[in-house]
């Protein structure tokens, strides 16, 4: 009897497995057909709710920064919770997933968003995960709006990926220009092996810096989750550069800075947009003093009324809930990624609004609307070029002084 039961069970299991396999391959085929079909429509807008996916890391290496970006998106959703299209008021609902700062987990997270029926996706913090999931979104014909992913590969060759920030070649060049203007002639690079953001920026900085007549005296790399930088710092100290360019994650920064100080390194450390996070100051303390970095946004810049309104509202939003303050690194400082998260949401929102009067309510029409959309966001005027990248020409340089991020200057690429 037992044997019979076991046999039946295993037969049932085999059948269900086969069924799963079958349906999965059917889905794949349907997706391929849809991609080849010129009149493809993607995901249709139905009912009275529009779902927008939030594809961000809230754990893992980039968990801290990703969370700040999510805060910006949640705030934007709170301020603009509904949209009117063709006389119907749609409620916009955010569907959040955690891509764990991991390229493999990112694809799974992207698929779970698609199966929950989102018409657009926001994110992600970290270029690597965005690149990994890009094809998944393109296959499902859902537009994705990156907020702070700066590597060119994110949008290149992907018709469905957009972003609201500037690119790494621009950022790398800006930092090289800044270094040059400060009178530095030699530089050292520290980048993370296998991380598209970090190695990309280091390469663009090197290209621009050498183009301006500077010399790279040391080019050091480290492994993901490395905690001991003493060996590479010793090498850099021996090479004696004027400045050190270290594009990396926040977690790395909190380890790197104290060790650089302990090794007696006095060269100017410059970094990229990721480092604009209060955690770095609270964890590295005096070791973080003097670090200069490029970023997308400055909360004290009052030339843009949209930004001014955002800063006031967002600070109130942060202070309204202790959990929000904790996620923001324990202060109510407005991070650039939060501003970009807000802009990412707003660009989808504006595109949804522009669908009013059209009879094609689906994710492909939304993508087409994004291509021609133009509005004033928190981080300046936003419109997209043929790759889907926001057209921007200026970066903000900030420096850590007396335990605070101080706005230094705006910097354009030379």
């Amino acid at each position, binding site marked *: 009897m037992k044997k019979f039961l076991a046999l039946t069970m295993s037969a049932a299991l085999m059948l269900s497995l086969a069924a799963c396999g079958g349906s999965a391959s059917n889905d794949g085929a349907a997706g391929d057909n849809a991609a080849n079909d010129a009149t493809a429509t993607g995901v249709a807008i139905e009912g009275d709710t529009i779902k927008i996916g939030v594809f961000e890391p809230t754990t893992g290496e980039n968990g*801290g920064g990703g969370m700040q970006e999510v805060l910006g998106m949640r705030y934007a959703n709170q301020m603009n919770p509904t949209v009117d299209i063709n006389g119907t008021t749609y409620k916009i609902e955010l569907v959040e997933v955690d891509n764990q700062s991991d390229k493999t987990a990112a694809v799974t997270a992207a698929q779970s968003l698609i199966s929950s029926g989102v018409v657009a996706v926001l994110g992600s913090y970290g270029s690597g995960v965005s690149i990994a999931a890009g094809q998944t979104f393109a296959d499902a014909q859902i537009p994705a709006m990156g907020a702070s992913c700066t590597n060119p590969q994110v949008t290149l060759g992907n018709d469905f990926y957009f972003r609201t920030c500037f690119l790494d070649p621009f950022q790398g060049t800006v930092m090289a220009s800044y270094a040059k203007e400060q009178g530095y002639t030699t530089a050292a690079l520290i980048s993370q092996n296998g991380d598209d953001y970090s190695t990309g920026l280091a390469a663009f900085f090197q290209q621009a810096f050498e183009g301006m007549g500077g010399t790279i005296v040391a080019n050091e790399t480290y492994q993901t989750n490395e905690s001991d930088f003493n060996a590479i710092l*010793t090498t850099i100290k021996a090479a004696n550069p004027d400045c050190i360019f270290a594009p990396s994650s926040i977690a790395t920064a909190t380890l790197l800075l104290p060790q650089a100080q*302990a090794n007696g390194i006095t060269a100017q450390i410059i970094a990229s947009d990721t480092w604009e996070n209060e955690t770095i100051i609270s964890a590295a303390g005096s070791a973080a003093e003097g670090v200069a970095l490029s970023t997308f946004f400055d909360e004290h810049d009052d030339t843009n009324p949209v930004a001014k309104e955002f800063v006031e509202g967002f600070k109130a939003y942060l202070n309204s809930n202790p959990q929000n303050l904790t996620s923001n690194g324990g202060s109510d400082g407005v991070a650039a990624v939060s501003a970009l998260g807000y802009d990412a949401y707003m660009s989808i929102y504006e595109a949804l609004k522009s669908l009013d009067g059209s009879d094609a309510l689906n994710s492909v029409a939304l993508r087409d609307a994004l291509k021609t959309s133009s509005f004033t966001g928190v981080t300046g005027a936003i419109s997209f070029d043929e790759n889907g990248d926001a057209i921007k020409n200026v970066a903000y340089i900030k420096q850590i002084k007396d335990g605070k991020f101080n706005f230094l200057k705006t910097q354009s690429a030379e």
Partner: protein
Amino acid sequence: MTTNAFLQYCLTGISIGGIYALIAIGYTMVYGILRLINFAHGDIFMMAAYFMIFSMVNFTLPWYVSIVIVIGATIILGVVIEKLAYKPLRSAPRMSIMISAIGVSYFLQNVATYLFSALPKPYPAIGFLTKIISFGGISTSVVTFITPILTLGFVFILIQLINHTKIGMAMRAVSKDFETSQLMGIKINRVISFTFVIGCFLAAIGSILYFTPRPSVYPLAGSLPGLKCFIAAVFGGIGSVPGAVLGGFIIGLSETFIKAAGYSEFSDVFTFILLIVILLIKPTGLFGEKITEKV
């Protein structure tokens, strides 16, 4: 490579090697007594770091009280793990108890993720340890400098304890022959608990020395150092305390010099190749005792 840079590399390598040695002793002693590879040891090391964050940041206790609490809590954790997860399996096949150890390891990692979140937490700074000293062209923090000295001090005391005290004699007897020593009236459970006490004490010290200059703690922070220390123990000859210490220093130094040569992507690869090579050439390790099959 200048002389200064070379000396700085040596100091870094010996310092990290010292920490590896402290943790490797925990692996090697437990193996010597129980013939068990305690895979949870790296995670006990990680938990010790969280205990420190708790007592110094959440309860704002001064560092000298915190160190005592951390050592106490780590020892209790280790002994409780032994009583709950290993003791009931004492007469079971050796494989079962090893699987239990792997289970404990995953359990600790996931409990830490659940309780403290996966985000890295800053490790509190102990004032005098993070002070920076420089002599000649070399600059380093106090903790990097005293780590190898502390390691050698503790190893010396440990060897005295094993060779010249009654409990040490009991430990040696148990590691030679578990059953016979039991028949001779040695309280086996006491000896095993004591072994875990020593292992966890050294893991707690190692944790303080490791995280002070690398102040970022997350639930998986113990897994890679744990694996490296396990390799250090195997390399030196598992079961042998001087072997574990030598293995720790060798791995620390080779890792640092590989990174110094600009091949940081190969530093971990090399450590694991070392494990494979030693297992192929001399499976008992550098100082390992010859295994004579008893019939």
